[in-house]
């Protein structure tokens, strides 16, 4: 009831606002250029700005239809009343004219004795007759010779009011109208008068004597005629007119009542018809707010049911997609466990919970020990199957309230809620035992998969979630370093272990960078001193952090080496370098790239296959690829190095021995390494101009290289003097800031500038 009243008030308010707005518009008005009021423009402005008619603003469809119905009804009503008035007036007017014509005919005949006997007393009988007709206001008979009134009747209504007699002009027009059957109207109802005044000549006619013998009434007969007088008549139709107005007024009221009833009934019908549509408003509003847990009720007309069905289907799809997104956002797609993001949230909540409830929980960080082996040897699919089985195993080892997630790669985390240290240890032992009993079978081979567990107790908010996690991670690392297949409970006193935690941190970053392509390549020119203008760059890896921060390889490569992910970086660099050569080629540039390989490369038996595949994939010439390995690494794996270098050289690739001279390895090794270039370590070059020892060393190395038929590359060339000295020593290539810093996007023009420096710079010692 309250709602209904409120709606009615709103409707009334809308109507009142419309009226006020129209009044305001009309009052202020729209003025044209001349400043005059423009009514049409004002009304147009009203319709454009009014919410009822404007499409710009949202308003209730039902209200809009009802208002339009009301306005249309009012318009139709006024048109109907106007039409009724006009047609009635027209009919009455025609009727008055006909009545006047009839009366003139009757009174013409009634007046016959008056003219025959020339006795005005005969008029009394005429008066008596016409007195019965109140519409006859007055009547006059005129004689024709002097145009004087011979008899007159004035109704009581007319009283003593003096009415002018026929003027000579009217009489003349009456003479001219002798052949017409119609009287002459002096004043008609059309003039807005109730009194209709007409006049007509009184004519006698006689057939010509000659025509009597051959009379034919069906044809027009020529007759003699004579005007014997005139008749003037006033008919007062005010009674009829008043009656008409009264009837039209009553009729209008009736029509208005009908329209009102029709409007109310129409409103009821429209609201009833559109109720299914209006019922949709609430769920649609909820949808608009982003709530999709709604059901749109479809009832009534087919169109509305179709809309409801479409909406419900859309909502269902949205729900399904939302669920998928939620799953993707919060759960690991492989194992179905919580993902890292959701686990972090759970961890924070758990910290808060333990604080509030003064409870104690434990965080377990689990890392599989042999996962990398499985993954590398049996492939990713086998690795995925292993992870799923481990996930199922772990799920069976935790309680219902505990939280388990796949944190990333082969790392799992568990929040064991409301638990003390002893019980936490029991759980860890239980997991270790289960893993020890677990056998992963793949391709008929059985693998024992163990894990290392880092554990930390959660007791209030002494540490943040990140710190707690770092402690668990660190403990896990400690367990691994202790020999794997064990757990380690974090001890706050183990501060030294925190340092190693940094490596663990790098481990995650590197994993993320490889996974998400957070690495990028920079290019530094390697310029020939022999006049060879072929573009040659050394490829240098950088890590891009949030905020586009560039991280140099010195920061992450040691950790990568230590954590065993350097090989992944190597592969990433190789693949992207080859792709870049291909892109250069597509741009019309023939470019040589020197690619650094880590020491771990010699533990990667698939290097040859991968390089071969990349060469084929990117369609590059193998001789454009120069792999650089450090002297120390090469010497450390001299056997494998020789073998791999040999295999890759069969593809056409070239090799450079990087940091040559640092280790002062036996030159004997050099003979066993089939490299193409010796890259003299920068330490010898940097101060070479001032240091004669370095000069001698460089000269010796260049000499040896020439002897072994290898090219030399001098890096860290930072000034023109060094460059000139190297030229003098007979170095083949130079590289350094003087010739060009490493940049992400290297242009040919930059290389040509470097080349120009090499060819034009002349310093005399």
């Amino acid at each position, binding site marked *: 009831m309250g709602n209904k009243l409120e709606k009615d008030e709103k409707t009334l308010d809308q109507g009142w606002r419309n009226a006020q707005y129209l009044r305001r518009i009309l009052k202020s008005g729209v003025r044209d250029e001349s400043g005059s009021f423009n009514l049409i423009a004002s009304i147009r402005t009203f319709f454009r700005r009014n919410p009822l008619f404007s499409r710009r603003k949202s308003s209730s469809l039902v209200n809009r239809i009802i208002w339009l119905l009301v306005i249309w009804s009012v318009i139709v009503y006024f048109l109907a009343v106007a039409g009724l008035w006009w047609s009635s007036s027209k009919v009455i007017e025609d009727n008055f004219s006909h009545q006047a014509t009839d009366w003139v005919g009757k009174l013409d005949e009634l007046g016959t004795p008056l003219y*025959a006997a020339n006795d005005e007393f005969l008029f009394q009988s005429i008066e008596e007759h016409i007195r019965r007709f109140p519409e006859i206001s007055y009547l006059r008979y005129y004689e024709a010779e002097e145009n004087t009134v011979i008899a007159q009747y004035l109704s009581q209504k007319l009283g003593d009011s003096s009415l002018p007699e026929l003027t000579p002009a009217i009489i003349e027009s009456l003479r001219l109208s002798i052949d017409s059957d119609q009287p002459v109207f002096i004043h008609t109802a059309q003039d807005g008068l109730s009194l209709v005044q007409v006049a007509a000549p009184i004519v006698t006619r006689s057939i010509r004597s000659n025509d009597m013998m051959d009379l034919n009434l069906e044809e027009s007969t020529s007759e003699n005629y004579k005007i014997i007088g005139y008749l003037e008549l006033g008919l007062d139709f005010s009674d009829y007119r008043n009656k008409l107005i009264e009837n039209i007024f009553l009729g209008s009221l009736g029509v208005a009542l009908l329209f009102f009833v029709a409007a109310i009934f129409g409103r009821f019908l429209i609201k009833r018809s559109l109720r299914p549509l209006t019922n949709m408003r609430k769920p649609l509003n909820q949808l608009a707010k982003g709530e999709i847990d709604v059901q749109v009720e479809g009832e009534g007309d087919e169109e509305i049911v179709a809309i409801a069905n479409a909406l419900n289907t859309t909502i269902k799809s949205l729900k399904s997609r939302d669920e998928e997104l939620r799953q993707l956002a919060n759960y690991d797609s492989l194992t179905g466990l919580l993902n890292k993001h959701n686990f972090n949230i759970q961890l924070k909540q758990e910290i808060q919970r333990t604080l509030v409830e003064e409870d104690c929980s434990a965080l377990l960080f689990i890392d599989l020990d042999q996962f990398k082996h499985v993954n590398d040897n049996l492939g990713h699919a086998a690795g995925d199957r292993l992870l799923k089985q481990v996930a199922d195993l772990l799920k069976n080892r935790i309680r219902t309230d505990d939280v388990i997630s796949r944190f990333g790669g082969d790392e799992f985390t568990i929040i064991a809620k409301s638990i003390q240290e002893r019980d936490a240890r029991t759980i860890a032992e239980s997991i270790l035992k289960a893993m020890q009993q677990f056998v992963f079978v793949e391709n008929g081979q059985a693998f024992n998969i163990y894990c290392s567990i880092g554990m930390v107790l959660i007791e209030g908010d002494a540490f943040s979630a990140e710190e707690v996690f770092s402690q668990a991670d660190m403990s896990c690392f400690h367990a691994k370093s202790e020999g794997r297949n064990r757990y380690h409970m974090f001890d706050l006193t183990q501060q030294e272990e925190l340092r190693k935690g940094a490596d663990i941190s790098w481990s995650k970053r590197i994993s993320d960078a490889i996974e998400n392509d957070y690495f990028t390549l920079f290019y530094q020119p390697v310029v020939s001193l022999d006049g060879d203008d072929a573009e040659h760059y050394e490829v240098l890896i950088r890590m891009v952090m949030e905020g586009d921060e560039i991280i140099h390889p010195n920061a992450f490569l040691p950790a990568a080496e230590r954590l065993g992910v350097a090989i992944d970086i190597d592969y990433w660099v190789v693949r992207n370098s080859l792709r870049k050569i291909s892109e250069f080629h597509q741009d019309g540039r023939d470019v040589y790239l020197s690619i650094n390989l880590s020491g771990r490369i010699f533990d990667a038996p698939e290097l040859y296959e991968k390089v071969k595949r990349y060469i084929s994939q990117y369609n590059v010439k193998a001789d454009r690829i120069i792999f650089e390995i450090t002297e120390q690494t090469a010497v450390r794996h001299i056997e494998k190095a020789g073998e791999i270098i040999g295999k890759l050289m069969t593809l056409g690739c070239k090799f450079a021995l990087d940091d040559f001279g640092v280790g002062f390895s036996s030159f004997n090794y050099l003979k066993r390494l089939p490299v193409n270039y010796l890259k003299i370590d920068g330490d010898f070059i940097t101060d070479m101009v001032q240091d004669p020892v370095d000069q001698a060393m460089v000269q010796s190395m260049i000499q040896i290289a020439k002897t072994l038929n290898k090219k030399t590359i001098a890096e860290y060339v930072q000034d023109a003097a060094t460059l000139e000295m190297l030229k003098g020593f007979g170095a083949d290539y130079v590289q350094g800031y003087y010739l060009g810093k490493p940049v992400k996007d290297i242009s040919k023009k930059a290389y040509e500038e470097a080349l120009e420096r090499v060819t034009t710079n002349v310093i005399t010692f």
Partner: protein
Amino acid sequence: MNKIKFYVALVLSVFVLLQGCAPAAKKESKVANIKKEVVEKPPAPVVETKKIVEKSEQQHVLILLSSSAGPYKRLANEIRRSIGEYATQVILTGKYAHDKSIINEVKSSKATQIVAIGLLAAKAVKAIENKQVIFTHVVNYQDNDLVTENSKGVCGLPSPELLFKDWRKLSPKLTTVAIISGKNLDTYLNRVKKAAKAQGIKLRLDQVSTDKEFIYKSKSLKAVDGQWILPDNRVLSAKALKEVMAYGSRRGRQIVVFSPKLLSFGGFFYVQPDESKMAKVVLQRLSDSAGKTTIPGDGVLPVMSHTMGINQNIARQFNLKIPDKYRKNINGQ
């Protein structure tokens, strides 16, 4: 109105006087011209009228028609058929100048007797001296003082005796008949009264001056079951005829008219004087007055024969059985 009549008479007199002073040769040539222009070939002589023709031998007769209306021409032909080559027929046109010259020729013609058919012709020859005028088809001759010693007529109205006799036979229950006419028809109306009385019919006579009065009086008639409309052009107009006949028909009045063309407007039957009988009477009067200074006999002689036509539809409306004798007259046959 009297002033206008006076001036017209004055102009005509002066004109006649001037014509009388004109040379004779010129006159003759003009008569010849008139003959040439207007005389039509006479119809074959009728055997019955042979004696009359013989009597009027040596007499030149000029037949003057008011117009070329059918009844006028038919009557003229009947007369000419008897008189033969001695008859000259002249038709007035109604145009003043032309008719004036014709009248002058008539005056100066050698014809001693004139037959004037219709009011216009009768009035035109009224003032001609030394010629005998027999007029016919004139209803209101009294108005114009047409009856003189040398000017007498044959009645153009049907015989009331025969009319009432026939009417009685057609409508045995007829009781009251009204006649509304113009003034100065006393002679004829006296005959009418007698004829009506002879048939046991009450007669109501009213005299009016205009068509309006005719309508008014006609509509004012009470307890009248028959109305006879005379061919009095002074009080008749097309509107009056239509209105009165329609009014009368609606009120069960048997209306007797003077023209077959009025039957379709509600007339019960029409009556016209028999043209051949009328011609005989004319010829008789010509014969009787030939060689005499005056025309003997009454001013206007009746024609005791008429033609009639009956509207069978109206008869049915009145539930009247038409006697066998009258069946030949049904629908104006």
